């Protein structure tokens, strides 16, 4: 056990995966000597050599496209996209190729690869260093989408994602990178994909969040508790495939739910969660579902704290939902 922040835990996950399996390769911009702009891969080029840690030219098409080829050949590439905002030049390769390869070869060829990318706001990054595009990938059959909120889960989920036989988009909450520390085993371990975690159990309202917003949801739940409202907080951890059972049982118990995410509200993942839970727990619902999300604007700079669904916006949503 070592006390690690999120960056260190992810690095540890990468290192252990590379030690275990010579086929694990890293690709990305500035991930070599510099160790990535967030230093996640620091020291890995030194340990594993420049032929396993590829400091690539500036092309997300090239990174993701060649990673697909490597995966088809049996390697396990883990790409880093420097910011989620810059994933779009590789979008075609992800949604038309990686996601569909297994299907279009009836399972004979497939693409076991991971694309890691820091996402979300809160670091004064404005519209191009703050985006949360998870919904685009959840809408794409064939991709898995993971988003850890803490160092322990991050390492375990990442190692599991690397072992997974399907392409996984791994969103890292950059606001949490250095803000949270916790004990993390030094050895390899797995946190299975597809399992959400009830981080606070409560009886009156279910609050679903992931990544950096989990902390806001949690803090809002504590505040609400002070005002007599008992909130259950669920950290999704894997966004897709979703742990539907955990969510439905919680909402069946509470009859009320609030979804929190950073991405713009419209067609965000929150809308899918509202739809699924409304469809499946309709007769249990005692209040309209509520989404507390980023606004439907590009991500701003100066007012990012008013854009993000921080606790000050979650608390009233929880109270109103509970008292509806």
């Amino acid at each position: 056990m070592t006390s690690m922040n999120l960056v260190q835990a992810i690095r540890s996950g990468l290192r252990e995966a590379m030690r275990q399996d010579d086929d694990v390769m890293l690709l990305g911009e500035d991930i070599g000597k510099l160790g990535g702009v967030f230093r996640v891969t620091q020291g890995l080029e030194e340990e594993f050599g420049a032929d396993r840690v590829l400091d690539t030219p500036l092309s997300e098409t090239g990174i993701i496209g060649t990673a697909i080829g490597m995966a088809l050949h049996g390697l396990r590439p883990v790409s880093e996209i420097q910011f989620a905002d810059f994933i779009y030049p590789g979008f075609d390769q992800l949604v038309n190729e990686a996601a569909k390869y297994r299907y279009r070869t009836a399972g004979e060829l497939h693409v076991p690869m991971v694309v890691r990318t820091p996402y979300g706001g809160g670091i004064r990054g404005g519209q191009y260093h703050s985006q949360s595009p998870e919904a685009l990938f959840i809408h794409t059959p064939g991709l898995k989408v993971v988003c850890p909120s803490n160092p322990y889960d991050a390492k375990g989920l990442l190692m599991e994602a690397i072992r997974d036989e399907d392409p996984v988009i791994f969103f890292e909450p950059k606001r949490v990178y250095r803000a949270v520390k916790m004990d993390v085993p030094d050895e390899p371990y797995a946190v299975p994909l597809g399992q959400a975690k009830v981080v606070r159990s409560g009886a009156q309202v279910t609050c679903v969040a992931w990544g950096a917003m989990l902390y806001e949801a949690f803090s809002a739940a504590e505040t609400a508790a002070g005002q007599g409202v008992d909130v259950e907080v669920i950290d999704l951890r894997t966004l897709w495939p979703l742990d539907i059972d955990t969510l439905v049982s919680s909402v069946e118990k509470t009859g009320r739910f609030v979804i929190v995410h950073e991405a713009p509200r419209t067609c965000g993942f929150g809308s899918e969660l509202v739809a699924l839970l409304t469809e499946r727990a309709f007769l249990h619902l005692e209040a309209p579902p509520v989404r507390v999300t980023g606004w439907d604007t590009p991500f701003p700079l100066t007012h990012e704290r008013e854009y993000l669904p921080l606790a000050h916006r979650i608390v009233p949503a929880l109270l109103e939902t509970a008292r509806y």
Partner: protein
Amino acid sequence: MHINRADGTLDPSLDPGLSIDQLVSLYKAMVRTRVVDDRLERLQRQGRIAFHVGSMGEEAAIIGAAAALRDHDWIVPCYREVGALLWRGYPLQRYIDHMYGNAGDPVRGRQMPDHTFSREHRYLAVSAPIGTQIPHAVGMAMAAKKRGLDECVGVFFGDGATSSNDFHAAMNFAAVYQAPVLFLCRNNGYAISLPAERQTAVPRLSEKGAAYGVPALRVDGNDVLAVWKSVREGVRRATEGDGPTFVELATYRLGGHSTSDDPRAYRGDDEVERWRKADPLRRLRAHIERRDAWSEAMDADWRAACESEVRECVQRAEETPAAELGDLFTDVYAEPPWHLREQRAQCLDGPRAEGEEHEP
């Protein structure tokens, strides 16, 4: 480069010295591909298959390149190279089943006709988006190199694909990482209707190599010997650690872009006629006939044999039932998650579509 002259003689200074048996096999493969193409086009016109994208006129470029690659080298196709797959021994029946999307289709009726693959024959899966396969080829080559395998990758694409994002990324990565890959650019004169001269301002696509530091050359793609020789040289370079090579195979698409196309809308018959005279089959035939290894009678026999082979495959394909409905839901992930299990049950237990879709 130009070796096989129209009169059937070879340029002795360039002759790569293929045996006459090899040349006859190449010719036979080219004819077989042509016969299959012809038949599929007719089937499409009869409404028996939905679509076909053929290679009429490009057989030398495709099969010559496939022949120059070694059997264990990967081929990464665009969508017009089934001749290369058949050259490698892919069963014709499997291909025709694929064209029908029936239960024998290796992709289980999930892709359009002419979008097949074979892991066994080291032939990657066709996808429609132009250019996307090029970085895959580079990634595979990088993997082979990292693993120290004596293996290279030949990737086919068209003149149009040189404008794609993927081409640019792939050429650059290949050169930076010195990947053992061959860029096999079938310049067949058109990207659907757009002539290659309007695709790019450079007269030869091989000039694009210079931007990346990828050695590049242009050869007569209707001359199977020139194709073979240049590709084999690329294989040598790749396997000796000299990195990628770009080969422009200058050829011509004698047919439409696909059975959905009407080429008369954008090009004249005279142009097509001119190119018919440069038909790669005719040229190679002149050579093997000149060497007394082929004759009019053998030609007729071979064509007849190919035709009856295709006819039988088609018959069997038409008797084979459609791919199973349940197949719609498998292979999205390694293991089907809850939502796909649920949707599969809803679909299989739900009402079946009958008759036509609804339009007012």
